[in-house]
C-alpha cells in the first residue's frame, strides 16, 4: 500500500508539468496581459522595466522555462497583480474553500444517498418520481438564483444567517454550503438511484433474498455495497471540482475561496496566480482521486479479491486489477 501511494505521489510530477504547460500557454494565448492591465497609466519607462523584469520582453517559452526552473526550486512565482507570492495567496484562500467543499459534499452525501436508495427500491413510486423531479429542479436551477433567493429569505427577511463572507464561523457556511450542495445532491441522488437499480436486478440479490436474508440487509449491505463504485466516483469528481472552488457561489456570498481567486486572476491575466493555483488544485484533486481509487478496493469484493492476489491471477490482455491501479506485487494491504 505504501509503495502504491508513493508511486501515485511521484505521478504528480508529470501532472504538475502537464498542467503548468497547458495553463501557461493558454494564458499566453488570451488577449492582453497583467502588466498592461495594471500598467494602463504607468509611464512608458516603468512599463518597459516591468516587461523586462517579468520576462515579457522575451518569448513565452523563455518565461515558461523560467517558471519551471523556479518551480523546481519550490517557488510558484509572484503575482503581478497582487505583488505577492502565489503560494501565500493560495494558502490564504484554501481554508475557506476546504470548508465549503467538505460541507457541501457532506450535505449532498447525507441527503442524496438515502433518497437515491429509496427511489430505487420503490422504483416507479411517488417517492421515486418526486425525488427525481426534485433532483432535476435542483440541477437546472442556476446557482446564483438559488444562492440569492436563500440569502434574501434567511439573511434579508429573517435575519437568521449572514449573507456574505467567512467571518461568522459555521453560520457563514450554511447558506453557501446549501447552495453548492443542492446541485451536487441532484447529481448524486440520480447516480445512487440508477446504480442501485442496476444492482437490485442482479441475480445474486435474488439469491440472497431466496436464502432468507432480511430485505433491509439485502439493500443496505449487499446492494449498496455493489452500487457504491459509481457513487464514489461521482462523489470524488464533485469533491475534486469543489476543491477548485465554486466560483458562482463564492461570488454571490463574497466567499474568500480559491475559485474566485482563480477566475479573477484569469480575468486579470495574472498568469503566475492562475498557473500556481491550478497546479495546487490539481494536486488536491489527485489526492482525492487517490482516496477514491483506494476506496474502490474497499467496497468491491471482486476488486478486493484481485488486490489480494496481486499479479498472480493474470487474465488475457486486461492484466490484473492490481496493476491497473498501480498496486505493487503482494502489497495486499486492502484485503
Amino acid at each position, binding site marked *: 500500500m505504501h509503495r502504491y501511494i508513493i508511486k501515485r505521489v511521484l505521478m504528480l510530477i508529470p501532472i504538475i508539468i502537464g498542467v503548468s504547460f497547458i495553463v501557461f500557454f493558454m494564458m499566453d494565448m*488570451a*488577449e*492582453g*496581459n*497583467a502588466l*498592461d*492591465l*495594471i*500598467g*494602463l*497609466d*504607468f*509611464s*512608458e*519607462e*516603468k512599463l518597459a522595466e516591468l516587461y523586462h523584469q517579468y520576462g515579457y520582453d522575451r518569448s513565452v517559452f523563455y518565461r515558461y522555462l523560467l517558471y519551471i526552473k523556479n518551480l523546481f526550486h519550490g517557488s510558484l512565482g509572484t503575482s503581478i*497583480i*497582487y*505583488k*505577492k507570492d502565489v503560494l501565500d*495567496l493560495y494558502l*490564504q*484562500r484554501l481554508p475557506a474553500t476546504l470548508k465549503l467543499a467538505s460541507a457541501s459534499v457532506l450535505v449532498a452525501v447525507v441527503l442524496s444517498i438515502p433518497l437515491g436508495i429509496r427511489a430505487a427500491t420503490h422504483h416507479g413510486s411517488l417517492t421515486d418520481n418526486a425525488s427525481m423531479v426534485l433532483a432535476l429542479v435542483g440541477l437546472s436551477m442556476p446557482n446564483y438564483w438559488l444562492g*440569492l433567493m436563500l*440569502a*434574501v429569505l434567511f*439573511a*434579508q427577511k429573517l*435575519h437568521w444567517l*449572514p*449573507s*456574505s*463572507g467567512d*467571518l461568522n464561523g459555521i453560520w457563514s457556511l450554511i447558506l453557501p454550503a446549501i447552495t453548492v450542495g443542492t446541485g451536487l445532491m441532484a447529481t448524486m441522488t440520480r447516480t445512487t438511484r440508477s446504480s442501485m437499480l442496476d444492482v437490485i436486478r442482479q441475480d445474486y440479490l435474488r439469491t440472497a433474498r431466496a436464502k432468507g436474508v432480511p430485505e433491509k440487509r439485502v439493500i443496505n449491505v449487499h446492494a449498496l455495497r455493489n452500487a457504491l463504485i459509481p457513487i464514489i466516483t461521482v462523489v470524488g469528481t464533485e469533491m475534486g471540482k469543489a476543491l477548485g472552488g465554486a466560483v458562482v457561489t463564492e*461570488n*454571490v*456570498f*463574497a466567499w*474568500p475561496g480559491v475559485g*474566485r*481567486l482563480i477566475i*479573477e486572476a484569469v*480575468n*486579470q*491575466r495574472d498568469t503566475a496566480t492562475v498557473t500556481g493555483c491550478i497546479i495546487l488544485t490539481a494536486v488536491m484533486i489527485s489526492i482525492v482521486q487517490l482516496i477514491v481509487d483506494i476506496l474502490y478496493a474497499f467496497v468491491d469484493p471482486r476488486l478486493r479479491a484481485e488486490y489480494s492476489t496481486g499479479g498472480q491471477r493474470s487474465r488475457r490482455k486486461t492484466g490484473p486489477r492490481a496493476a491497473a491501479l498501480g498496486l505493487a506485487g503482494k502489497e495486499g494491504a486492502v484485503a
Partner: protein
Amino acid sequence: MKKRSVVVLVSLLGAAMVLAACGGVAVAADYEEHIVVAIDTKPTNFEPSGNDSSVLNRLVYDELINYNKVTKELEPALAVKWEWVGDEATVLHLDLREGVVFHNGNAFTAADVAYTLSTNVNANIANYYDHCDIQGDYSVNVVLKAPNADFVNLLTNTLYAGVKDKESCEADPDNGSAIGTGPWKLDLEHTIPGDTIELLVNDKYWGAVPTAKRLTLRYIDSASSRLLALQNREVHAMMSVGETDVEAVKADPALEFKSGSGVGPAKYYFLAFNMMNGAAKDNLYLRQAIARAIDNEDVILAVGDEEAEVSDGAMWGYDAPYRASASDFKTDLSYNLDEAKALVEKAKKEAGGALPELHLISNTSKSINMNHCLVIQEACRKIGVNVVIDETDGAGVNAKTKFNAGGYDMIMHNIPLETWPTGVNRLMVKGNGSNNRALLANEDVEKKLFQATASSDPAVRDKLYKEVQVYVHDNAIYVPSYYGSRNGAQLAGVEGIVWANDGYPEFTYATFKK
C-alpha cells in the same frame, strides 16, 4: 418612565454585548468601534502609485496637497505651502508639515517626498517629474522636465500621489510601501488580498483622528450581494447600488441612499471611433451619422441611472475649467434621426456603395456597458448601419487599445475625468496615450495640448483646450453620451462618509451611532 427604563435596559444590553464582543475593552458608549464597508473594486496590492485603489489610498496615505471633493478647493496636507518658482511652471517649491510620523514611527521628511516622486510609476507624475532639490528636512523644490501648470493638482490625486516611507520601502521591497502617514494603518496580518482589507486607526495621525478603532473594507463583487449584506447589517455602508435596487434602498427606512451627483468630477461614458485602422476612420459622414442617430436619453434609460446627465458633446470633465460648450461647436451632432439618415446617404456616396459592417467592442462583463452597446446597435440599425457587438472583458479592451493594436471600429468606454485638464483628458487624445481609445494621433492636437499645459495664462489655455475639444467633437471622434452618477447606501445612523461623484467615497471619518 416605562419607556425610559426600556431604553436603559436596551442600552445596557447593547453595552454588555459590545463589551462581550471586544473582550472587555471600554469603548465610547455611543459609537460603533468597528466599521465595515462593502466596496466594489478590489485593492490588490499596497503600492499607492500603482494599485488603482483610490478608496484604500485615501485611508492609508496622505498626499502632499489635498483636494477637497466637497468645497473643490486645494487644502494643505503633507505640504503646508506650495508655490511656483519663477514664471514658468517648472519648479514647484513645497514647505512640508513638521512632526508627521509614518505608521512605523519614522519621521516624514523631504527625503520621503523625493523618494515617492522618483519611484512613482504613474505617467502623469513620471512623465513630468525630473528631480528634487532638497533644501532642508521640511523644504524642497520639485523640478519638472517640462512646464506643467496642473502639477499641483496632480499631486492631490489619491490614485497615484500617496506619500511613501523611503526607509521602509528600501528595507522591505514587498510590503514597505504599505506604510503611509494616513489616518488608518493596514493590518496586513488579518488582510486577505483581493477580498478583505483590515485597517486600524492611526492614533498618532497629524490631523483629526477618526472615532472608530477598526475599519474593514470588504470586496463584494455583485451589487445585489452588497445590498443584502447591508440590509442584513453585516456592513455599515456599500458602494454602488444596483440599477433596480435604488428604489428598494430609498423605500427602506433603515437605509439611506447616497448619491454624489454634482460633487467633483463624474465618470463619463462615450462612444469612440478607431481613428487608426477602424472601418469608419476615413468616413466623416458615417461617424457623424452614428453620432446623430444615438439618443442619449435612451442610453440613460437603458443603463437605468436616474441621476445621470446627458453630455453636451465635449470630451471634458463635468465641471472642469476650460470646458467647451455647445455654442463653441461648428457642427451640430445632437440627436436627429432624419439628419442621421441624410448623413448615411452621404456616407454611402463617400464609401462608394455599401457601408461596412462595424464592430463595436466594450467591456461587456459590466451590464451597463452591455445595455449602452445595445442602444448604439439599435440606433445604427434604424439608419441602416449594421453593428456587431464583440463582447470582451477589461483585459481584452486594453489589449486592443493600449498598444494601438486596433481590430475594432468603435468602442464604448468610460473614464473618470478629473476637474483639472492635464490629467486624463490629455491621455484621451495624445498619441500612445493610455486612455486614447480612439487611437487618435493628430500632430495639431498634440501641439495644442503641449502649449496649453505649459502656459500659466488662463486665457491661452482656455483657447487651446477648447480648440482641441471642438476638433474632436466636430469630427465625431469621441461621441460622449452622459455623465454617470456614482452612488452608495449606508445604514441610518452612519455619518462622516463623503460620497464623492468620482466613484471613490471617503470612509475616513465614518461613524455609526448605535
